């Protein structure tokens, strides 16, 4: 199998395994990137040389990790993080994923995939592995790996970096890989279907509810990030407002003028968005226009809720599809640009490796390093949501079974690299600047002087004058209390690029480019997520009353859209009104629900591995499962019952209630706290149920009381292998 990295040319060491893999190469045996980069591939380099090279990679990785872990009191270059990441991924892919592929999953190059067997030119299409890799990466890469690491940077760069690397190599990549492969072997079935078939009805139900919950919480948090990034920012609000007519124009252009020319339309849309960013500067400097686009957080929240409802009810081609194309285009371009920027400019990290906030007193979000660092960073390390993608479109495109390794494991490595870049973007900022941007007014105070004095008293010196000049440099009125991670990431990215490309003069353009990129990204998720949630609710309600299940019946569309938008809109409103900034309570809730979904995916995977008769290797998924259960259950307990009001929902409600006769506003805050505690409790109980059902199923199979029988599609030999051998 041709690999993503040099030296990954074969998937197994044994001749038998090599033979089974031999037919899997769409680009010719032993070629692909391994052939282009001449070569660590096994055929062209003597074994001792290869061993020496891999030893060198391991030594370099160890040196990089030691440098970022052991340096104290002096700043290090961001390239150490990049080198540590690349070496970890190379070793993880070359050795660990190869082990999983060969010993645990026994990938079979002779077995036809559903893309081949069920090829209909529509959903099931055998596709080149690099194309599937790009498609899969574009689907799994969202704002999560950008926002989570920025928030977790309050602990310093070290905890986040280590968790991203270890979590991805041993957890996230494995979860995506095994879920993808098991879906491929089941005709591309979804995670919920696999949970129902392999674990039981409770498993299927829990997976369904977990998916709905995560969608609702995710959308609420994502919308809150946009609100916090755009509030009191006429430049940002103007640019994002302009993306709506641009998307509509793209929809009409695609349908009427140049049917099917999506790339061309996306390039056109991108140019128009660039013009909108440039126009935003004009808008912010023209008082009459600036007044119109200077919006308070509650106003923005209402506008986004209305937008979400409209986007869910409008035809797909008019708004959702063009915006999706545009945001994907911008996303891939920006990630590539950031990667090049970091490697070429090699910025210095100003954040210390560990901050005093590992004790749980952090201003960005409250809670100790364990467990909160591990639920704050989800998508860059392990994300349950990826299991939905790995059991969605991707398994229907995989041409040969062994290619699941590169697509599943490899694409998650790329996603993890994005998280490392986000960590770098946050940590190149002066810590005082980082905390001034990310700390809510309820923690550091409303007045600039008060906030600067509070942050300086923590040992991260910053002055109100410095923050004022930074805000002016990026074209904003203020950068205080911009919680949510997006503004800090944008300032970090602008800081990296403005150090060479255009200097301080274009810092405002870089900043608003990054804000536009994140907001566009998130609004696309709001469009798509609301619609996906709507379909799921319609599917469920269709069992109660059939017309409600009809996806083209407008009363049902409006009712279910309102239901989903109302649900995430409630969380958004709660966050906007929260004096602690909303992110403090909602991001951990999102992290918990996302990691609980990963728990469901790993339960399904472990069950299947045991039923395959590979119980001896079950630790591959069982170890990350146990870690996630420990982390998420501990975090959930803290969020519900911790006596610190900044951490525990119930303690916070108690604190508010004991302050005297509560006003209407305070009563609402108390209700929100209790609601968040109940939501957390429900999620934990449901995942405990699926865990219990899984353990019982494992016990039945391992003790022989139940036959170990997996529900895979019947074996059909692939014609691709025969064609390639001919």
């Amino acid at each position, binding site marked *: 199998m041709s690999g993503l990295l040099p030296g990954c040319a074969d998937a197994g060491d044994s001749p038998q395994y090599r033979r089974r893999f031999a037919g899997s190469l*769409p680009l010719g*045996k032993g070629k692909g990137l391994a052939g282009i980069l001449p070569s660590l591939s096994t055929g062209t380099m003597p074994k001792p040389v290869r061993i020496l090279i891999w030893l060198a990679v391991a030594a370099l990785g160890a040196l990089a990790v030691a440098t970022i872990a052991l340096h104290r009191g002096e700043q290090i270059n961001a390239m150490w993080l990049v080198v540590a990441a690349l070496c970890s991924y190379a070793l993880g892919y070359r050795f660990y994923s190869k082990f999983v592929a060969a010993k645990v999953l026994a990938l079979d190059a002779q077995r036809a995939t559903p893309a081949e067997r069920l090829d209909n030119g529509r959903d099931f299409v055998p596709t080149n592995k690099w*194309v599937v890799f790009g498609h899969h990466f574009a*689907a799994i890469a969202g704002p999560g790996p950008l926002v989570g690491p920025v928030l977790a940077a309050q602990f310093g760069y070290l905890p986040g970096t280590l968790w991203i690397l270890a979590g991805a190599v041993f957890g996230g990549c494995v979860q995506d890989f095994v879920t993808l492969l098991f879906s491929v072997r089941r005709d591309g079935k979804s995670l919920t279907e696999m949970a129902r078939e392999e674990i039981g009805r409770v498993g299927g139900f829990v997976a369904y509810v977990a998916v709905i919950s995560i969608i609702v919480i995710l959308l609420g948090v994502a919308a809150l990030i946009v609100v916090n990034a755009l509030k009191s920012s006429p430049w940002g609000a103007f640019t994002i407002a302009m993306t709506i007519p641009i998307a509509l124009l793209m929809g009409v252009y695609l349908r009427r003028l140049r049917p099917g*020319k*999506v790339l061309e339309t996306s390039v056109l849309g991108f140019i128009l968005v660039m013009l909108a960013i440039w126009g935003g500067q004009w808008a912010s400097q023209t008082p009459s226009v600036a007044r119109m686009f200077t919006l308070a957080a509650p106003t923005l929240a209402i506008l986004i809720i209305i937008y979400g409802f409209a986007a869910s009810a409008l035809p797909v081609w008019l708004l959702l*599809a063009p915006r999706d194309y545009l945001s*994907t285009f911008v996303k891939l371009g920006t990630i590539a640009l950031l990667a090049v920027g970091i490697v070429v400019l090699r910025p210095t990290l100003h954040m210390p490796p560990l901050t005093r906030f590992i004790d749980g007193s952090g201003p960005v979000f409250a809670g100790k390093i364990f467990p909160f660092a591990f639920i704050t960073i989800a998508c860059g390390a392990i994300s349950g949501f990826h299991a939905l993608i790995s059991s969605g479109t991707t398994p229907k495109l995989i041409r040969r079974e062994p290619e699941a390794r590169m697509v599943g494991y490899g694409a998650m490595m790329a996603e993890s690299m994005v998280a490392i870049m986000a960590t770098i973007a946050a940590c190149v900022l002066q810590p005082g600047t980082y905390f001034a941007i990310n700390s809510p007014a309820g923690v550091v105070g409303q007045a600039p002087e008060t906030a600067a004095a509070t942050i300086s008293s923590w040992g991260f010196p910053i002055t109100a004058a410095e923050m004022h000049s930074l805000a002016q440099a990026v074209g904003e009125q203020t950068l205080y209390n911009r919680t949510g991670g997006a503004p800090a990431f944008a300032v970090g990215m602008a800081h990296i690029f403005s150090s060479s490309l255009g200097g301080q003069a274009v810092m405002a353009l870089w900043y608003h480019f990054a804000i536009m990129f994140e907001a566009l990204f998130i609004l696309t*998720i709001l469009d798509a997520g609301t619609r996906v949630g709507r379909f799921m609710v319609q599917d469920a309600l269709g069992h109660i009353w059939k017309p409600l299940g009809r996806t083209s019946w407008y009363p049902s569309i409006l009712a279910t859209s309102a239901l989903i938008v109302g649900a995430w809109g409630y969380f958004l409103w709660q966050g906007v009104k929260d004096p602690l900034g909303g992110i403090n309570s909602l991001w951990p809730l999102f992290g918990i629900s996302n990691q609980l979904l990963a728990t469901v995916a790993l339960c399904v995977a472990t069950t299947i591995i045991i039923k395959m008769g590979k119980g001896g290797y079950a630790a591959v998924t069982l170890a990350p499962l146990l870690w996630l259960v420990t982390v998420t259950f501990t975090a959930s307990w803290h969020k519900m019952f911790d006596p610190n009001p900044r951490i525990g929902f119930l303690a916070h409600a108690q604190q508010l209630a004991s302050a005297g006769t509560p006003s209407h506003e305070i009563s609402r805050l108390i209700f929100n706290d209790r609601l968040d505690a109940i939501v957390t409790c429900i999620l934990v109980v449901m995942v405990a149920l699926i865990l219990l059902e899984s353990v019982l199923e494992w016990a039945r199979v391992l003790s022989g009381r139940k036959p170990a029988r997996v529900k895979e599609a019947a074996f059909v030999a692939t014609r691709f292998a025969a*064609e390639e051998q001919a």
Partner: protein
Amino acid sequence: MSPRRVAYFSGRDGSCQVQEQQVLPLRFAQGQDDNLDLLTRRRARLIAKVTTLLATFVSALREIFDESAYARFLTRNRITSSRAAYAAFLREHDVAKARRPKCC
């Protein structure tokens, strides 16, 4: 020396096609044909590899942006691109696209 399979990408639907070509390893070719300049052959191989990389990249973009799906739709239904054809494609494709989750 047996022929080797190489891939190319068709411009219309972006799918990967495989055909046989006589691509000889460098050291073998050197011995067979001394007239060919080593550097020229290396450059030609490099260009071929870069072209393959670019073709793969464009194919990935076409797949991500559904242009390949549209091309397959046209091929399947044996029709040419037009407003009506694209509208029909969107009708078929919209349901699947709208149900596709976007990750966080």
